[in-house]
Structure formats: structure tokens, C-alpha cells
């Protein structure tokens, strides 16, 4: 009998570049280590599993810099350049790689209801789970990280 895979879960609640990358990078690496890997998207993180969502992700500079008009656009562009220069895939590529490599992307049911999200707008392959469904999985996890 095949040995059951160890399980990993990652929670993402932010739709910014710094909110999106950690869960995807960790999720892919968990899958590559042979684990069953899932990312649970809740609150603003939900935007990342909507069609085109990863392309809209921004980087908000911390502190007063973030309050200066236009600074977010500049900071986002600079951050994307740094990401590319470091040979790191774009969010869209990373999300596609994650799904191909078996990482399951889960949308939070409460957020879907609260934000009145049309489930047909979710990217292909995304499941919608309630908190209870997620916790049943999380209880079995060897790794469960809030990113």
C-alpha cells in the first residue's frame, strides 16, 4: 500500500506582491518535497485566485513612502524588476507552476460570500472551502503556516 503523503497548508490573506509570493514559493516547495500541499486564500488574498488577479498585485512601500501619490506604482515596478533580476518567476508563472505541480489553491467560502464573488470568476481548479473544511485538513497537516 502506498504511504500516505504528509500534508502542508499555507494561508494567504494579502493580495500584494509580498503577500502572494511566500505562500506560492512554500507551497511549491512542499509539493516538491513530496507533500500534499494546499494554499488557503482568504480576505484580500482571495483576489489572487480571481481571473487576472496575480497581474494586479502591487507592492505598497512601508511607512510614509506609501502615502505619497504614485509611489505604489513606482515601488511595484521596482519590485518586479528586482524579482526578474533575481531570476524569480512572475506571480502568474509561479501560480501556473504551482497548479501544474499539484499545489491546490483553495478559496475561503466566507470571503466568497462576504465579497459577493461570482465563483465563475475564480481561476480554473480553485475549490471553495468553509473554515471547517479547511480546519479538518489543517488538523492533519504536518506543516501549517500563516504567510
Amino acid at each position, binding site marked *: 500500500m502506498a504511504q500516505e503523503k504528509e500534508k502542508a497548508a499555507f494561508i494567504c490573506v494579502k493580495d500584494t506582491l509580498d503577500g502572494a509570493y511566500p505562500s*506560492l*514559493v512554500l507551497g*511549491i*516547495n512542499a509539493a*516538491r518535497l513530496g507533500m500534499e500541499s494546499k494554499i488557503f486564500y482568504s480576505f484580500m488574498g482571495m483576489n489572487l485566485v480571481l481571473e487576472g488577479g496575480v497581474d494586479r498585485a502591487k507592492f505598497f512601500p512601508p511607512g510614509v513612502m506609501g502615502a505619497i501619490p504614485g509611489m505604489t506604482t513606482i515601488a511595484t515596478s521596482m519590485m518586479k524588476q528586482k524579482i*526578474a533580476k*533575481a*531570476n*524569480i*518567476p*512572475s506571480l502568474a*508563472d*509561479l501560480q*501556473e*507552476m504551482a497548479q*501544474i*505541480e499539484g499545489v491546490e489553491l483553495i478559496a475561503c467560502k466566507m470571503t466568497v460570500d462576504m465579497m459577493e464573488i461570482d465563483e465563475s470568476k475564480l481561476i480554473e481548479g480553485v475549490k471553495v472551502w468553509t473554515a471547517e473544511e479547511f480546519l479538518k485538513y489543517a488538523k492533519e497537516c504536518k506543516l501549517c503556516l500563516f504567510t
Partner: protein
Amino acid sequence: MPTVEFGGKTFTVDEDGFIDDYNNWCEEWVQYVKSQEGIDELNEEHKKVIQVLREYYEKNGIAPMVRVLSKVTGFKLKHIYELFPSGPGKGACKMAGLPKPTGCV
């Protein structure tokens, strides 16, 4: 370092099974990785990916980003995974004789 024997040749590999020296790459190594990857038959598309990876590595000293590999070969990311089930890093780069990609993804 561990060694593997295939087709009458001996290769030294790292802990993840990547060839230790780019210059030791040869047809037997390709056939060895093919057998490890569970690829039935190597076709022109596999060879194109290998060629692009080796040319890029020789020019830049690193493996290309997946988007670049996809653009230069003309293959969608999903198709590259179909060609190399372990993916562009652990599958294609390994077969092309490149060192294990050092990044997180």
C-alpha cells in the same frame, strides 16, 4: 559524491542527482535521465528544450527563467511539464547537464 553508472559510463552526481560537471554531459547522461524521468521516447521537442537550456547556460552561466525558456522554445509552460514530468528544473535542467538551480523555485 555518489556516482551512477549508465550505458558503460560513470557519472558523479550531487545529492539531488544532478551531474557534477557540465562538461561531462553526453548522450548516455541524457538516456540515463530519460530513464529516471520515465520518458518513453525523446522527441525533437525534448531536444529543443535541452539545446535551448545548454545554449543559454553557456552564454549566461545560469538556467533561464521559465518564461524565457517558454518564449525561446515556443512551448507553453504546461507543455514543458508534459515533456519533463519533474518540471523545467529537476527534469529538463538535469537532462541538459546544468547544475541544480540554486533558487527557491
